[in-house]
């Protein structure tokens, strides 16, 4: 998707003004399978680039979700506790996970753009 940046662990981030929204990509949700449970941090907590901030459960597995950027969690998608499947049906819109106030906006430059991410996914799938 245009306007988004991507981590090599398959999370996306959309930076709009003072807030960045984070979720997992369509590639990730497709490989994970039906999401039945989501564990997210509380607002006020902090996230660090490349470190886990939560998890999803699918197909008997918990899979860590890693933050593409560092910052303070300002909002968490409360709809995901009742409807975790939004991550599958709408990974870039209704399935967003957390909103963060970035502490180091320059971290975004180290992430992939849409074309780079698409190529990354193709190479990853081809090599397995």
């Amino acid at each position, binding site marked *: 998707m245009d306007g988004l940046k991507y981590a090599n662990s398959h999370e996306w981030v959309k930076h709009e003004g003072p807030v960045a929204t984070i979720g997992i990509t369509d590639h990730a949700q497709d490989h994970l399978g039906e999401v039945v449970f989501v564990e997210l941090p509380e607002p006020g907590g902090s996230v660090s680039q490349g470190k886990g901030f939560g998890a999803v459960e699918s197909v008997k597995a*918990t899979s860590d979700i890693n933050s593409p950027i560092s910052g303070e969690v300002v909002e968490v998608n409360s709809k995901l506790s009742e409807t975790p499947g939004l991550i599958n049906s709408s990974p870039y819109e209704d399935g967003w996970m957390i909103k963060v106030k970035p502490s180091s906006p320059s971290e975004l430059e180290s992430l992939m753009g849409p074309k780079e991410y698409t190529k990354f996914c193709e190479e990853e799938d081809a090599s397995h």
Partner: protein
Amino acid sequence: MLIPQTKNIGLPLMNLMRFKGLPILQQLHIEEQLLRTSSENWCIVNDGTNDPTIVMGVSGKPAELLEIESVLDDQVPVIRRFTGGGTVIVDHGTVFVTFICNKEAVPNLQPYPRPIMSWSSSLYSKVFQGIGDFHLRENDYVFGNHKFGGNAQSITKNRWIHHTSFLWDFNVQNMSYLKHPKRAPAYR
């Protein structure tokens, strides 16, 4: 210690830990610690645990999955583990087998739930060859259409764990502490 040349053989080099009767809570602590802090591959085998214990998956809701009154009356311990999956009651008749691996340990294996489970089921197919009609059926390990073990996984950025509780033997009465889950595969 990892020997770099083993990467080329195609099978992961694993450290093997064998226990007998290790309490399941202790086993789970060891597993989570190894998953999150070790950089080596591990296989853990625990032949039975001590007292009957209920082990729930990360998202399990006790009110939906347990006969709570009986569990409380009989003081059956209930543990929530860090992996997904359902609820099991384990005791001295359960055999636990766990694999903890780096993401690159198994060549061409994508670190997602279904590929990992497909890998583990192909390993167990060799283990159970000639013993019964073993296969992976709707994410369960079965002989024919009888589920004989519960399995679950956790996947971090660079590692994964797949662990199984095999019902070598079980006490039918203990099963009465558990309710049937709302969502269950049709074959059961």
